[in-house]
C-alpha cells in the first residue's frame, strides 16, 4: 500500500535534507540578509510536516517526539527572553545586547544578541508549528486531555 506513493516518498527523501539545510541557511543568514528565526523555524517544521504527510504522523512522532517539542518550545522561549534578561544582569537595560561584548568597537554584542535570540525564535517556532500539526492531525474523535 505504501508503494502507491513511491514517487512522493522518493522525492521526500531527496528533499528532506536540503529543506533542513535551507532552514539553517535562512536562520543564520538572517543576520546579513532577509531571513531570521521565524522563517527558518517554519521551514524547519515544513520538512517534518512533509515527512508526516507522506510517511504518516506516527512515523514522524518517532523521529521527533512530542516531549522533545515541548522542551524545545520552552527552551527556545527561554533563550529568547533570557538573552534579553542577561543584559540586565550584566548591568545594562533589557535587550541592550552591547553588554554581551562591552569592549567591542563595532557592536559585536548586537551580532551575538541577535544571533542567539533568532536561534531561540527559530527553535520555538519550529517546535510550535510541529506541535500544532501533530495536534490537528492526530486528534481523536473523543477529547483526550493530554492532547489539549
Amino acid at each position: 500500500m505504501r508503494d502507491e506513493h513511491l514517487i512522493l516518498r522518493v522525492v521526500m527523501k531527496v528533499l528532506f535534507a536540503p529543506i533542513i539545510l535551507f532552514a539553517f541557511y535562512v536562520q543564520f543568514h538572517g543576520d546579513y540578509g532577509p531571513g531570521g528565526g521565524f522563517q527558518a523555524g517554519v521551514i524547519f517544521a515544513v520538512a517534518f510536516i512533509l515527512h508526516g504527510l507522506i510517511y504518516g504522523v506516527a512515523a514522524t512522532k518517532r523521529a521527533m517526539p512530542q516531549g522533545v517539542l515541548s522542551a524545545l518550545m520552552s527552551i527556545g522561549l527561554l533563550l529568547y527572553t533570557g538573552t534579553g534578561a542577561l543584559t540586565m544582569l550584566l548591568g545594562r537595560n533589557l535587550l541592550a545586547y552591547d553588554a554581551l561584548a562591552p569592549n567591542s568597537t563595532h557592536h559585536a554584542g548586537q551580532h551575538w544578541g541577535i544571533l542567539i535570540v533568532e536561534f531561540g525564535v527559530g527553535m520555538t517556532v519550529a517546535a510550535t508549528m510541529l506541535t500544532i500539526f501533530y495536534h490537528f492531525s492526530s486528534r481523536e474523535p473523543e477529547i483526550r486531555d493530554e492532547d489539549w
Partner: protein
Amino acid sequence: MTIADQLPVLPIILPLVLAPFAILLRNGRAAHVFAVVVCGAAFAFCAMLLARVTAEGVISYALGDWAPPIGIEYRVDLANALVMLLVSGVATLAAAFSYASIRTEIDDRQLPLFYAAFMICMTGLLGVTVTGDAFNVFVFLEISSLSTYALVALGARVDRRALTAAFNYLVMGTLGATFFVIGLGLIYQATGTLNMADIRAQLSAGPPGAMPNSMVEAAFAFILVGMGLKAAAFPMHLWMPNAYAYAPSAVSAFIAAASTKVAVYVLIRFTFTIFGSDFDFIDAMLTYVLTPIALAGMFFASIVAVFQEDVKRMLAYSSVGQIGYMLLGISFGTEAGLQASLIHIFNHGLMKSALFMAVACVMLRLGVHTCSGFHGLTKRMPFTAAAFIFSGLSLVGVPLTVGFVSKWYLLQAAFDAGRPWAGFLIVASSLIAVVYVGRVIELILLRDPPSEGLLANDVDGNPVREAPLSMLIPMWVLVGANIYFGLRTDLTAEIAGRAAAALMGGAQ
C-alpha cells in the same frame, strides 16, 4: 545599575521569562505556588514602581538602550502605575485563589499550562499598560488576548458553551485588534513615528491647520472602535457575557477585573496623551460618541443584568454597565472626570474580582453559578455570603465602600462639567444596580437553603461546607481592600487626581 533602574521592565520580563518554567514543572501544585510567587513578585515591583513614580515623577526606560523615539520606550506615569498595581495585585490574588477551584474544573495535567497561560496573560496586560510605544500596545494586547482565549476555552470541561464563547471572543477580539492596527497605520503614515510622546509632538507641531487632518481623525475612529471592542463598551460587548460566564471561575475573577480595564486605560492614553482634548474632533467625539455609548451601556446593560438567571452572566452585564461609568467620566473631558474614571477603573477591579471569587466559591461547593445556588447561602457558607454581600454593596455604591468613592467623584465631575443631568442618570442607573445586586442578596439572606434535590448537598454529595481557606483568604483580602480604600479615599483619589492632571497637562 541597580534594580531600581530596571523597575519598569521587571514586572513584564519576569513572568514572561518564567512562564515556560511552569510548563516544565509538570506538577499542578508546584506550578500554582510558582505562579503565585511570580505574580507576587510582579506585584511587589509594581508597588515599588508606583511609590517611585509618586515620589519622583515619570520614569522612562529605553529598551535595548535605543533612545526614544527610535527605540521602544517604557514610560511609567501615575496613571499606568495605578493600573499596573491593580492588574498585578488582582493577578496575584486570583492565582492564589485559583488552585482549589481550578483543579475541579480542568484536568490536572493541564494545570501547568493553565498557570503558564495565566502568567503570560498578566504579562500582556502589564505590557499594554507600561509601554510608551503605540505598536507595542498592539503586540502586548494580543499576547494577553490570545492567552485569554485559551483560558476561557478551558471552561469547556464544565460547560461546552465555553468553546463557543471563546470563539466569539476570539473573532471580536481579533477584529478589535485589527481595527486598532489600522488606526496605528494611519497615525504612522501621518506622523512617521510610533512613540506616543513623539506622535503627540508631531501632531502639535507643523504649520497651523496641517494637523490634525482627516487621516488622523480616521485613525482615532479606528482606535476608538478597536478599543471599544476590547473594552466591551456597550454596543460592542456581545462577546463578553458568555466569555465571563463560562470561563473557569478563577479566570473570570482575573479577566473581569483586569482585561477590560486595561482596554479602557489604552483608550484614555490615546485620547488624552496622544490626541488631547484641545483638538476639536476629540471634543466632538467625547460629546457626541462617547457620552451616548456610556449612558446606553449604563442603562441597557444594567437592565439586562436584572433579568439574568446566571450570577456570572449578571456580573458580566454589570461590568458592561460599569465600563459605561468609566467612559462617562472620560467623556466629560475634564480633569475631574478623568480622575473619576481612573478611580473607578481601580475600584471596579477590586469589587468585581471579589464578586467573581465569591461565585467561584459557590461553584466549587455546589457546582452551579446560577441564582439557585445562592439560596440561604448565609446558613451554609457564611464567609462567602458575607464577601458577596460586602462587595455587592460596593458595586451598588454604598458609603464606606470603594463603590461609593467612585460614584461620589463621578457625580462631582458631572456637576463640575456642567452636566447635572448626567449626575442624575448616574444615580438612576445605580438604582438598577440595587435591583440586580439586591435580588441575589435577598436570596442569600432571606431564603432557606434547599433541603432536597441536587443542590441540597455539595457536588460530592456531602453537606455543604464553607470554601477552603486558600480561597477565602484572597477573597477577603479583596473585600478588605474594598473597605480600606473606601475609608482611605485620599490614597486612590490623590494618585488618580495627579495622574489625571498629568494626562490633561499633556493636552496643553
